[in-house]
């Protein structure tokens, strides 16, 4: 086990530990903070894989964007200091079953798959390569999904504006 492996296990333990804390704590704000730490751990994992761009996107989108939105909605809706009600036995059993099933499925798939022993092809994860691939209309390019996602975001933006817009009522004399 060399240095890199030790780091892998450290990061993995960190992600799992904070993830378990996120679902087991009974204060909702703390749960979101643990989720945040877990997501940062995943970003660290991407850094470990030398995928810097992906890691930075993970931090910017999930940590800086989505968790902040979650925290804002908690601030606006919940009595954040209170402890939430304990989960019932039935719910606990089903949750445990669901996670066990998910774990079993993943483990099964991983053991079925035969990983090639010699991965000679280096992955070019530089920002230039990602950019050209993203806007490449030819083979191996991702222009169509990219544009489709941008349409989705645009429609979400327009929806927000429509909801937020004040419609002036016709003035009646």
């Amino acid at each position: 086990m060399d240095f890199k492996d030790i780091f892998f296990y450290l990061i993995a333990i960190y992600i799992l530990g904070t993830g378990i804390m996120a679902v087991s704590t009974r204060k909702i704000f703390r749960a979101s903070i643990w989720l945040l730490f877990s997501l940062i751990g995943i970003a660290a994992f991407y850094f470990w894989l030398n995928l810097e761009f992906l890691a930075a996107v993970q931090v910017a989108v999930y940590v800086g964007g989505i968790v902040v939105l979650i925290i804002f909605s908690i601030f606006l809706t919940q009595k954040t200091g209170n402890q939430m009600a304990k989960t019932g036995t039935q719910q606990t059993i089903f949750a445990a079953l669901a996670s066990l099933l998910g774990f079993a499925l993943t483990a099964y798939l991983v053991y079925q798959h035969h990983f090639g022993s010699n991965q000679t092809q280096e992955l070019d994860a530089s920002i230039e390569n990602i950019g050209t691939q993203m806007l490449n209309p030819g083979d191996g390019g991702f222009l169509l999904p990219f544009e489709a996602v941008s349409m989705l975001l645009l429609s979400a933006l327009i929806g927000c504006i429509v909801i937020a817009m004040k419609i002036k009522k016709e003035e009646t004399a």
Partner: protein
Amino acid sequence: MISLENISASIHQLLSANLSQTAVILIEMSIIALLAITLFALLGLILVFMERKVSAWIQIRLGPNRVGPKGIFQTTADTIKLALKEGFVPDGADKFLYKLAPFVVMIIAMMLLAPIAFAKNFAMWDLNIGVFFITAISSVSVIGILMAGWASNNQYSLLGAMRSGAQIISYEISAGMAILTIIVLTGSLQISEIVNSQSNGWWLFKGHIPAVIAFVIYIIAVTAETNRAPFDMAEAESELTGGFHTEYSGMRFALFFLAEYINIFIVCAVGATLFLGGWMPFHIGAWEGFNHIMDFIPSSVWFLGKTFFLIFVIMWFRWTFPRLRIDQLLNLEWKYLLPISLFNLLFMTLIAIKGWHF
């Protein structure tokens, strides 16, 4: 000639001649950590003192002048005072998050330091996505503020934290746009390449009017992002008694205070790198003699000089302009800065494609 580059290279040679690779990495990492912490402490002392002197001179006062010659040890005395104070935790606070929040803010400020080039070939981690790394990590700092505001169990803190969150999230966009405007010209996110692309002139001068507009927008946006006056709604002493750090005292408060100044240093360093050529000396066209004299000044001095000039500009803002109201603040961002920076980006892209820049 002695330079930071040579010193770091010779230390690396000395270590790798005697030790194994892993040990070299570990020792170098601890040296870097030690240097970073020292830099933080020094920056805190210098910038707080600078802020107090600048504010005093702008307000026709003398400023600190009792502790040491011209008062230069005033901030040291303040630090000792803060270190000796009781770190108070309010009743009903979420103790764990309350104690964690200042460290989160501080650690994020430390991480931002990694890709910055302090001198020629002298950066901790010159990674491929340099500038994007800084934008991404700095978006996390709002979490520390939200954590502090919520954990304090105080309405003022919570309100300050929410304001700060809204402010940072919205101003991040135009700061990002201003950065992108320069990235369009450099074609790279790596800090060393951005600096190298300015060897024949700074982007502020080479990029015509769009670069100047981007520079102004960048300065405005980062002033808001670091929660400084005239955008310091998060702290707004007169309305919120202190915002998210109302309940903090002693060293925990000092960490927040320090992180604010470190963040200013970092955004100014990024601004200097993008617009003012980082550690590149100032050159004028064909004046060989002048250019040669400019080359003689060490690159670290150039970098620190530019950074401190931008810091001074931001301090100048703080002590000149009155605080904005929260709706004025959001108006400024969404109705003025964002549309202008979008059009500016388009215009700059046109310039870059046509090759109109120098």
